[in-house]
């Protein structure tokens, strides 16, 4: 298939940036979206132009490195996939495709389609862990039975890949779904109880400091989340936050 690509080009953090138009031809419908961009880049290199920089790594939908805002949707038109799993059969021959970086104040553009998501790192560092040191004397794993429904819930929350689609798609650039996933995972597990209150307060506090917006429950994040993380977890985090705030002695 032949396509017209409108791609965001930006030399570095300080550059203003602009959309550029590139035609690509002979794309297989079995190619992934990133493989289509590989074809474009090969073409640009041959022409002597700098190729388009974009983030990607595992190309199987789990590392969370790839991003891209495609035709106005985070990770493009398909559901429950990352950009690397998006296939060209989702597009029509002759279509014009707009490709932009994830947009949010907390995700500054580094170059072209590459954004800086280290704000997510700092949120995790504020409390996304259980304080247990490595030790060969930890209690036997089966000494702590966990009811299957609870373990399954924790797993559902834990599947977040930290890609940032939730932020990119939210009109408020809210990171609530991302933070809620981690807070919820530990809140369901007995191991997470000791630091439960402190964790939610610290992580939410850091989220606010990073400049993410607030949640107005539009639910766009859940729709665009490649792992189908549920809005339920945001409700759960809100409850966790309120409970922790009331109990807080700070």
């Amino acid at each position: 298939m032949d396509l017209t690509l409108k791609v965001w080009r930006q030399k570095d953090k300080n550059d203003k940036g602009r959309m550029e138009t590139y035609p690509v031809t002979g794309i297989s419908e079995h190619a992934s979206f990133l493989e289509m961009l590989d074809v474009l880049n090969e073409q640009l290199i041959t022409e002597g132009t700098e190729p388009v920089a974009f983030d990607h790594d595992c190309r199987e939908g789990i590392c969370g490195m790839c991003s891209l805002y495609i035709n106005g949707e985070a990770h493009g038109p398909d559901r429950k996939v990352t950009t690397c799993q998006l296939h060209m059969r989702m597009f029509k021959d002759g279509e014009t495709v707009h490709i932009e970086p994830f947009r949010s104040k907390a995700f500054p553009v580094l170059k072209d389609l590459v954004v800086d998501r280290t704000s997510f790192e700092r949120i995790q560092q504020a409390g996304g862990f259980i304080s247990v040191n490595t030790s060969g004397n930890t209690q036997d794993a089966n000494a702590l039975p966990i009811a299957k429904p609870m373990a399954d819930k924790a797993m559902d929350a834990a599947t977040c890949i930290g890609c940032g689609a939730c932020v990119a798609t939210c009109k408020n650039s809210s990171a609530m779904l991302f933070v809620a996933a981690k807070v919820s995972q530990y809140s369901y597990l007995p191991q997470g109880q000791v630091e439960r209150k402190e964790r939610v307060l610290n992580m939410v506090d850091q989220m606010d400091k990073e400049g993410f917006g607030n949640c107005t429950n539009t639910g766009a994040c859940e729709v665009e989340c490649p792992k189908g993380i549920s809005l339920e977890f945001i409700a759960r985090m809100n409850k966790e936050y309120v409970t922790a705030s009331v109990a807080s002695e700070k």
Partner: protein
Amino acid sequence: MSKLDSKIPEGPLKDKWTKHKNEINVVNPANKRLIDIIVVGTGLAGGAAAASLAEMGYSVKAFAYQDSPRRAHSIAAQGGINAAKNYQNDGDSTYRLFYDTVKGGDYRAREGNVYRLAEVSANIIDQCVAQGVPFAREYGGLLDNRSFGGVLVSRTFYAKGQTGQQLLLGAYSAMNRQIGKGKITMYNRHEMMDIVKVDGKARGIIARNMITGEIEKHSAHAVVIASGGYGNVFFLSTNAMGSNVSAAWKIHKKGAYFANPCYTQIHPTCVPRSGDFQSKLTLMSESLRNDGRIWVPKNMDDVMAIREGKKKPTDLSEDERDYYLERRYPAFGNLVPRDVASRAAKERCDAGYGVNATGEAVYLDFKSAIHRYGSEKALVTGINNPSEEKIIELGEKVIEEKYGNLFQMYEKIVAENPYKTPMMIYPAVHYTMGGIWCDYNLMTTIPGCYAAGEANFSDHGANRLGASALMQGLADGYFVLPYTIGDYLADDIRTGTISTDLPEFNEAAKEVTDRLEKLINIKGSKSVDSFHKRLGEVMWNKVGMARNAKGLTEAMDEIKAIREDFWKDVRIPGGMNELNPELEKAGRVADFLELGELFAKDALAREESCGGHFREESVEEDGLQKGEAKRNDKDFAYVAAWEYKGEPRDAEMHKEELEFNDIELKTRSYK
């Protein structure tokens, strides 16, 4: 006498590790904070090591080329992690896990290392549960297990089809706690460009800030290389696009021996390739072989009809199908080890029975499992005389619970529903058992430089069993390295901070800058990828699943020629002092072009078939094992550790003879 000292402790196998831990030096807590350790790579081995070392009090600097430690390719491991817990009461034990691993590795691994691995395996599960890793559980709340290829017990722990992700997020959370405390300084989007040696010891690295292009000098008292495997030398593999050999190759060129580079695992269950644009291959977890049956049509007419779209696989009756693994290996059936399953698929496809347009695909069919689970579920839920539709509906639900994400992934790639029609699979490069040679302490032949996880060579021999990579990465990172590194660092408590103004740092930084300048100034006519693809083609055709002397000799020359062409004609747009993905790739491909040649040389020197290394000249000629791989223990029960001597083909081999005192060497039979 070999130059290589594996430093395996004396004494009975089961006491070696305990005894060693009791005897090695330790650094007192007050002194640990005066010691810096660099960890390159933040996957399971690097992440676990960085977190554990920081918890102990060392000052850690961790490096990742991705924008977060959480994105390291350990994240993509699907199936599970082995541990000798014997929760299923099926007779598992440390010894049995040790035995299976040595046997699975075709008797080319070190007994001492593997026993230690089996010994600490149970601790890993305890540790991960304590961190909040949500492993799959049974209704009683206890941990669930499944079985994996090549073994007869259920010892694999899992978190849906995302076990690697959950384990890595566990290590990542432990790292985050230490980053927050300032005990780990995290360098994201940084690539190690070289190691710096001072007085023969590893004392730091040169790294490139991938955003600004700045060449940075970082010092430490020890350097840990946990940079993963080198499967991308084949261009197409299940590795991440950025996975590379560069960190390992740089230390090799500075004195670390590279062991058994030819030991590569070709994983049997991957999504077949679909065209020239293909950038990577996607694995479908081996756990699928627990419930999926592998087959091709018995008759060539059916093969042709399927390829032409005139017949569907579901049209074929049971007796028109050749379940070739069940036929050839009745004892293990679909659960034979990976190397055996891969070669069997290749054998059928080479014979013309491949079921897709490229002729390189076999079926993985869940119909029987769906039926079996559906009937069981009906019984349990009290549904009497369930209809066929009801059974299938219930069975599909069970399969979805077990492998839902894998099925979804397959459907997105291939656009076929694997609940209704069998999956198509074909082998692909997945894991490299070879790597940097290291002793029992995981120290390489460069003092103070360690290798952990897939980057080292030690535990899997010539073939890795399923669910053992996660085990080894975490064992090295959580439970081995944190102890053994102290033995070396105990001598460094008075050294003080290593200055990066030393001439050795400046020289290394200059070398790095010169090489990058050279690359960017070639201004040739072809892209980096075009060279990588050419290399991959030679590797796959001549150094792939079946190898022979003629092909390997040709491969060495062809790779050399591609390398020379690369240095004359590669085109790298953009500059050095900016985010430049083409420049990053070029540096990595340049190293693959050297490794590839050594890889072929190693394969040529090993005139036997063992594990993932199959030499066409070395097969059993008669008896029950006719046509199967023939190992030669008399001449080849050694580790080939290569010393860099300039050109890759000039490398000198040092042999570490493998001794087997606790295991009798047997022909691996899965019949």
